[in-house]
């Protein structure tokens, strides 16, 4: 029964303090709603503190901006102010969505940057490690195959389940923090073997060399499969980290793909049979040129081809991306009407600084941002964006208010930055 294990009972009875009690109560309600029968121990959580609402909403709920009260209400959904000593599980932060060096360029300005810094200081106080990235697996939080996790950040959830063979449902800020505090997560969904089998075969008919096409494939398939797990077959290339990050990000931006298999590549798919169980009744979906074009056209919509802002690094750029982008910009100059942002986390940016990549990008007129995201740029709604991520293109209109988005290859984005014009196309 839910909450009946001895340590769970003790937390529910308040023997480990009111914060653990509130966290456990929240997890019980959540697990009941899911239809879970019991909890499983977890020692790996990631909290998406950057998703906290705008400071104006937070201030309305907690006028004093007292950090323990904010954490109680926004992280644990507790009306009562509770003070937490330390989290139980190994826990890292997701992107805070703010680079503290440029408050005025991001929505909410300095007040919201200050709120997030306050939340980060709180999380460090309670024992959370501040990785500040949507790609924790790049910088030290790497789930092992079979490890039970409570992860947030949709693309990272897909990466954990699909690429690493870790086990996590798509948690929210509240449930992941409650798991961090208690070391428990509902034994449901992706934690159970029977739910990890593929349900739909995706027959891939196009050449998968371009990073762009990994995003487009995820974006198209995500819009088609609902909650079913796809099994990608007949892929003619072995994907690298960047390509898999793109597939993960796109499939859960257009839809709900928390896990996929790639036959012969991902750890739970040595064969089609292994990926799909005995799989007699698997549905089949095609990904060919026509499907690729449908996804491409859904992501490209702008009333002019002048590009105001180019955003790269969604999910957070890794070392290979930093190297490539720096190489493309070395000795060149970005157009006077165009801004270029490359987003990553502080650990990768530190390496890029030492390696000289940051200087190559900034000398060309670009900017390397840490711990933030292009989606939080404070812009006029008429702004024209160009990006190489289907996830970025998907969320830009809702987050920034601008309906003008171009999506294409990294090369096309760099050309747009250098010339101020979008010339991308799908051949």
């Amino acid at each position: 029964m839910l909450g009946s294990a001895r340590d769970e009972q003790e937390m529910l009875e308040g023997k480990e303090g009111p914060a653990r009690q509130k966290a456990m109560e929240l997890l019980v309600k959540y697990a009941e709603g899911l239809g879970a029968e019991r909890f499983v121990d977890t020692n790996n959580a990631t909290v998406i503190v950057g998703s906290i609402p705008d400071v104006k909403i937070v201030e309305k709920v907690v006028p004093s901006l007292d950090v323990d009260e904010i954490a109680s209400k926004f992280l644990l959904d507790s009306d009562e102010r509770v003070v937490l000593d330390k989290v139980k599980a190994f826990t890292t932060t997701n992107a805070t969505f703010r680079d503290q060096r440029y408050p005025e360029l991001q929505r909410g300005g300095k007040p919201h940057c200050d709120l997030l810094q306050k939340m980060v200081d709180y999380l460090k106080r309670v024992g959370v490690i501040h990785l500040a990235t949507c790609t924790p697996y790049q910088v030290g939080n790497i789930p092992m195959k079979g490890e039970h996790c409570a992860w947030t950040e949709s693309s990272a959830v897909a990466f954990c389940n699909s690429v690493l063979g870790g086990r996590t449902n798509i948690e929210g800020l509240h449930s992941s923090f409650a798991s961090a505090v208690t070391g428990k997560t509902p034994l449901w969904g992706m934690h159970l073997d029977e739910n990890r089998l593929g349900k739909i075969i995706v027959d891939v008919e196009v050449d998968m060399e371009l990073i762009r096409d990994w995003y487009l494939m995820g974006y198209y398939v995500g819009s088609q499969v609902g909650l079913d797990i796809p099994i990608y077959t007949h892929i003619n290339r072995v994907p690298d980290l960047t390509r898999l990050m793109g597939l993960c990000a796109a499939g859960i931006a257009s839809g709900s793909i928390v896990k996929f298999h790639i036959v012969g590549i991902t750890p739970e798919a040595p064969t089609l049979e292994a990926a799909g169980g005995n799989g007699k009744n698997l549905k089949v979906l095609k990904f060919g040129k026509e499907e690729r074009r449908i996804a491409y056209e859904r992501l490209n919509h702008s009333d002019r081809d002048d590009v105001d802002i180019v955003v790269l690094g969604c999910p957070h750029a890794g070392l290979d991306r930093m190297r490539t982008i720096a190489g493309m910009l070395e000795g060149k100059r970005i157009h006077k009407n165009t801004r270029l942002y490359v987003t990553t986390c502080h650990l990768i940016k530190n390496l890029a600084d030492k390696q000289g990549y940051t200087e190559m990008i900034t000398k060309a007129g670009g900017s390397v941002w840490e711990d933030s995201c292009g989606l939080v740029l404070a812009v006029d709604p008429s702004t024209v964006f160009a990006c190489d991520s289907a996830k970025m293109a998907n969320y830009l209109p809702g987050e920034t208010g601008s309906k003008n988005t171009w999506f294409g290859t990294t090369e096309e984005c760099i050309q747009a930055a250098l010339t101020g014009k979008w010339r991308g196309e799908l051949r």
Partner: protein
Amino acid sequence: MSKIVLRGRKINGGSAEGEALVTKESLGGFGCFDFDTGKVNDFGHELYGQNVSGKILVFRTGKGSSAWSIAHQALRFVGKSPKAYVTKECNPQTVLGAVVARVPAVTEFDQDPTEVISTGDWVKVDADRGVVEITKK
């Protein structure tokens, strides 16, 4: 007037009644709402421009970012929450969202609620019993 009754499973308890707002699509959270009005601003979504505030929100399931729950909790904090969720399928976003938005929610019905219910129908949700009663417009 004839009534249709759907039977499903409780996600989050409570009861509510009101006008339905229905989409056959899945619904996001992050980047999907204007918190001043409660309108959907997910560009390209079937509900784009529609207001969820005070409605019985009928949708396939939750999709997209794991910031779903915080967005739906924020709708409660600004007084723009839907009155209830009625979903075809259940996933973690929907469940946690209903818990922290503190709205009654029911899922996994004997029929697909996004087929049976139309926008504008009057819907009574008794989440504890898992029963949804529909009066067609």
